[in-house]
């Protein structure tokens, strides 16, 4: 009798262990970004929301130690080695990471976001079209300057794909409307230099009547420089992304509008897309492999609603 009890206990214990061990074997999804910024915090919120709806999966959100493609690629290698089942990445330099992408794609499903690498074996791209976003910004500028004007652009990395596409889209949209993008000044994501660039343009280029902030931190710097020079409202500004200062400026009317991406959607939809894919459902993948989440224009009319929605998403 005694032995029977011990035996049953042992079997029960091993069963429980077996079940819990199996429970550890949830499939893992990873979202890898290229920099530390509030922009990606929204994506992280989207990813966390998706986790609530994907109880059978474990989602991770990873920032590399530095925003270089090399570190991102080795991060992905480590993730795959640790058992990650699908990865979505916003690469710092997709054009030069084709080999690394292919290596990863050969082992797990790989998706891109924010910056695409169409020549690689990635399954699909989910994000904005930077070109279309640039076009939207250009159209906003045309609306705000019916008589035309000379614009100066400000960006972080002049050579980055997303910067180049936005600038190209912008130029495309202002074509023929008597608006010129005179130049784009780069600051390599040095906030002090970003601010100095605007100050210097205000001094050196009095002919400038409009400005564009292409990266998310550029518009706040434009705002602060204009404020310090007492020129708020005298220069028309179109912005990208949703820094609180940018939204405040839109609300108070100093900025014409801002074109926001929807990184929350990238995180949220991206996780669900990868989960579906792992379950064999490829219906979400279009033929050209491009899932474009449209960018939105935020102006004085819809800024309050937008901000409330943002708060809900990040808070919740």
């Amino acid at each position, binding site marked *: 009798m005694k032995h029977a009890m011990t035996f049953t206990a042992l079997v029960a214990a091993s069963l429980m262990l077996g079940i819990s061990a199996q429970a550890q074997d949830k499939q893992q999804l990873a979202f890898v970004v290229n920099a*530390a910024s509030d922009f990606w915090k929204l994506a992280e919120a989207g990813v966390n929301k998706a986790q609530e709806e994907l109880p059978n999966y474990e989602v991770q959100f990873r920032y590399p130690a530095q925003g270089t493609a090399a570190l991102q690629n080795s991060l992905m290698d480590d993730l795959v080695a640790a058992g990650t089942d699908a990865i979505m990445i916003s690469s710092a330099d997709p054009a030069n990471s084709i080999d690394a992408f292919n290596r990863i794609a050969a082992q797990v499903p790989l998706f891109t976001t924010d910056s695409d690498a169409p020549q690689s074996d990635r399954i699909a791209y989910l994000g904005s079209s930077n070109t279309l976003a640039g076009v939207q910004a250009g159209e906003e500028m045309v609306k705000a300057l019916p008589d035309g004007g000379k614009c100066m652009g400000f960006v972080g990395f*002049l050579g980055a794909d997303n910067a180049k596409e936005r600038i190209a889209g912008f130029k495309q949209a202002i074509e023929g409307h008597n608006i010129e993008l005179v130049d784009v000044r780069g600051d390599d994501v040095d*906030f002090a*230099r970003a601010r100095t660039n605007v100050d210097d343009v205000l001094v050196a280029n009095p002919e400038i009547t409009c400005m564009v902030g292409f990266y998310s931190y550029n518009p706040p710097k434009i705002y602060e420089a204009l404020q310090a020079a007492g020129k708020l409202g005298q220069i028309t500004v179109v912005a990208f992304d949703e820094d609180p200062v940018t939204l405040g400026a839109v609300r108070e009317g100093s900025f014409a509008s801002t074109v926001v991406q929807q990184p929350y959607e990238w995180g949220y939809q991206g996780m669900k897309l990868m989960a579906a894919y792992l379950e064999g459902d490829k219906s979400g993948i279009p033929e050209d492999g491009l899932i474009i989440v449209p960018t939105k224009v935020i102006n004085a009319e819809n800024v309050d609603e937008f901000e409330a929605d943002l708060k809900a998403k990040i808070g919740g």
Partner: protein
Amino acid sequence: MSKKDTGLLVLILVVAAGVYLRNPLFLSPNNISNTANLIGLFGLFSIAQGFVIITGGIDLSSGSMIALLGVLFVDLVGNKGVPWPIALVIVLILGILLGLAHALLITRLKMPPFVVTLCGLLIYRGVARGYTGDATAGFPFGSTYPGLDFFTARVYGVPTSLLLLVVVAVIAWVVLHRSVFGRYLFAVGKNEEAARFSGIRTNLVIGAAYVICAALTALSAVFFAMYTRSVSPSSQANFYELYAIAAAVLGGFSLRGGEGSIIGVVLGAILLQILQNLVNLLGIPSSLNFAVMGTVILIGVLVDQQLGVYRAHRRLVEAARETAD
């Protein structure tokens, strides 16, 4: 003012004249004011670095310290509602504590300054990033804090950062070139062992240099934070210590220690900011920013060195002519 300082001043004037001829707006009041502000910002922690370099050491952690203390300051005032004078004191004390840590590791535990401050560079930025979870620390839109605009104010167009730089530079000049402590710094930098054999408490002297450096860097961290109004811990002041080291080297500081001039390092900081300014003013593509800086510095130092060689040669020739008679 030494020959070297004069040479640097001449280089500055030549570059400034050149830029002015290409774009007279270089000397417009707004531009002078803007550039003066940057000179104040960068000059402050360049002087800080000078104190450390003169002992034969180096502080690679300046940029990361500016990031960490800047993040803390903005977070305390903007998010936690701490009155800014208290936040300022907290940040300064923290900076001094970090400087003390450097001092102890270097003088008591005999670790090389390069290694200690390199670890500082890595650790401080990492802590800054961890503190905010990699988010940017910023003030809420439209927030104002009475008195805090001191750090960005301009008195008749003269930025407070420049005024502070002038005050600090004068004090630093007196300390380094006229005081007992300054003499000790030079002696320790030239030959630490001989200084010890003359009864100088070398550990105290070297330690003090690192504390001074950290304190001044902490002060400039607050200025930078107010200039950018939002601090991204991963990118704020990235590699700025190189600006400080470059300014010091341009200003006659030897990396082996024992040589340097406060006037020189301030002139060096001025030159570096003028070079940054000219890239924007002359519409040179932003990508060439550092290429322009490096080229002008190289040519300037080369010309200065060759002039020195030529002058020394002339002296010898003349002296030989005299004694030959």
